[in-house]
C-alpha cells in the first residue's frame, strides 16, 4: 500500500513540474468553455429545459466538463501511449518482474496525475466560468464532497478503459488506432459534446447505461443536484459497478497478455 501511495505522489509531482503546459491547458480549457457556453446558450434559448436542464445547469455542464477534461483524460493523453511504448520496445518485461502489480502501479500513477490535473487544470476554468456566466453550483459542502467521490470513480473508470486499450498492444504491436477509437467513444458517450439526456429516445438510455457516461455525465449530474437520496446512491453505485467490472476485465487481460509476452533477447 505504501508503495502505491508513493507511486501516486510521484505521479502528482511529475505532472506538477510542467507549469507552462498546465497554464497553457488552463487557457485552452477556458477558451473552449466560452465557445461551448455560447453555443449552449443559443440552443437553450431555442429550447428551454432541453434534456431536463435549465440554462444555468446546461452552462454548468459545459464548465464542469472543461474543468474535468484533463483529470478524467477525456481526450486521452494519459498513460496509455507510454504503456504501449513499453510493451512495444520490451521494457514491459522489467515492469513484470518488479515486485509490484502492473495494473495497480499504473492506477496509482494515474490517480496521482488526476489529482494534480483536477487542481491545476480544473479550478481556474470553473472559476472563470462561474464569474462570467450564471452557473448552478451547490453551496452545500456535502454535495461537493459527493462530487469528489464521483470524480474519483470517474478517474478509475477512465483508467480501467484505457488500461484495456493499452494492453491491446500485446497483440497489435501498434495500438494508436485502437487508442484513437477509444478516445472517440469516450468523447461521444461521456456527454462532453452534448449531455446524454439530449440524445434522441432509446439511444439516450443506451448511452447512459454505458461506462463512458460514468466518466463525465454522472459526476456533473451529481454536482448540479439531479440526484437525491436513493437516486444518488444508485448513481455512485452505477459508477462503482462499472469500475469493478472494467478493472476485473483489465486484470484478466493482463494475465493473458503476460503469458503471451515474448521478450526478445539482445
Amino acid at each position: 500500500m505504501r508503495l502505491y501511495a508513493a507511486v501516486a505522489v510521484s505521479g502528482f509531482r511529475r505532472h506538477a513540474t510542467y507549469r507552462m503546459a498546465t497554464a497553457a491547458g488552463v487557457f485552452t480549457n477556458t477558451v473552449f468553455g466560452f465557445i461551448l457556453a455560447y453555443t449552449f446558450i443559443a440552443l437553450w434559448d431555442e429550447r428551454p429545459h432541453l434534456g431536463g436542464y435549465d440554462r444555468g445547469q446546461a452552462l454548468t455542464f459545459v464548465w464542469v466538463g472543461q474543468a474535468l477534461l484533463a483529470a478524467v483524460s477525456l481526450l486521452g493523453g494519459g498513460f496509455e501511449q507510454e504503456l504501449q511504448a513499453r510493451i512495444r520496445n520490451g521494457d514491459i518485461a522489467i515492469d513484470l518482474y518488479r515486485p509490484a502489480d502492473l495494473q495497480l502501479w499504473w492506477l496509482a500513477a494515474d490517480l496521482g496525475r488526476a489529482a494534480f490535473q483536477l487542481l491545476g487544470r480544473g479550478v481556474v476554468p470553473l472559476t472563470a466560468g462561474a464569474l462570467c456566466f450564471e452557473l448552478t453550483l451547490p453551496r452545500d459542502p456535502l454535495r461537493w464532497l459527493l462530487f469528489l467521490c464521483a470524480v474519483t470513480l470517474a478517474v478509475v473508470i477512465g483508467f480501467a478503459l484505457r488500461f484495456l486499450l493499452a494492453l491491446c498492444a500485446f497483440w497489435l504491436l501498434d495500438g494508436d488506432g485502437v487508442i484513437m477509437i477509444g478516445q472517440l467513444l469516450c468523447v461521444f458517450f461521456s456527454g462532453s459534446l452534448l449531455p446524454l439526456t439530449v440524445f434522441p429516445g432509446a439511444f439516450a438510455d443506451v448511452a447512459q447505461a454505458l461506462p463512458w457516461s460514468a466518466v463525465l455525465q454522472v459526476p456533473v449530474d451529481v454536482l448540479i443536484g439531479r440526484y437525491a437520496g436513493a437516486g444518488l446512491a444508485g448513481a455512485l453505485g452505477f459508477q462503482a459497478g462499472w469500475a469493478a467490472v472494467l478493472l476485473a476485465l483489465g486484470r484478466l487481460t493482463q494475465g493473458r497478455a503476460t503469458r503471451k509476452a515474448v521478450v526478445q533477447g539482445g
Partner: protein
Amino acid sequence: MALWAHAVRAYLLIAGMWVRSTMTYRASFVLMTIGNCVAGGLDFLAILLMFSHIDALGGFTLPEVALLYGATCTSFGLADLILGNAERVGQRVRDGTFDTLLVRPVPVLAQVAADRFALRRLGRTSQGLAVLGWGVASADVAWTPLKALFLLVTVVAGAAIFCAVFLAGAAFQFWASDASEVANSFTYGGVTLLQYPPTVFARDLVRGVTFVVPLAFVNWLPVLRLLGRDDPLHLPGWVSLCGPLVAVALLALTGLVWRAGLRSYRSTGS
C-alpha cells in the same frame, strides 16, 4: 525561387518518407484515417443532434450551418495536413533534437512542416468536404460559376489562414517550449468557433476573431456573403472578399515571427 523549389522538394521527400513508414502498420493506418474522419464528424453529429430539437440555431438553418461547418473543416483539414505537425517544435526544442534540423542542408521550416507527416489527416479533410458538399446542395443559394469559384477561393484562403496560425503557434514554441496547448486554442478552438454561426457569440468575441486573429475570413464573412446575410458587425460588403489578401498578409507576418523565433533559438546543449 530556386530556394522555394528546394524547400518544396524537401518537404515532399520527407512527407513521402513518413507516408511509407506509416504504411508499415497498415491496419493501424486505416483505423487512424477512419478515426480522424469520425473525430471531425463527431462535432457535426453534435450539431445534427442539436437540430433534432430545434429548427434554427442563432437564426441559421441546418444547411446554412453545414455550409459554415464544411468550409471551415475543409480548410482546417488541409492546413492540418500540410503544417499540423509544426506544433512538435516545442518537443524538439525541449529534448534537443531540434539541433539536427539546423545542420541539414534543407530549410528548417520544410523539415518542421513535414515532420511525422500524417496522411491519415485526409480523413478530416474528406469529412469536411462531405458536409460542405451537402451544404452546397441543400442551402438556399442560387449557385453561379462565380459563386462556386468564390467558395473554392474561400476554402483555399481559409487553409492558408489556418496555416499561418499553425506557423505562429510553432514559432511561439521557441519562447515557451512546452505550451503547445496555447496554439490549440487558436487552431482547434478556432475551427470549433467557426463551425457555428457568428450570431451565436458575443459581439466582442466576433470582433476579436475579425480584427485581432482574423479567423472570420476563413468562412464567416465569405459564407455570409454567399447566403446573402448581413454580418453581425455590419462591415462594408467588399471586406468579405478580402480573404486571400488577409491570408497572404498573415502568412508574411507569421513568416517573420518564425524567423525571429528561429534566430532566438538557443540549443539545450544536451
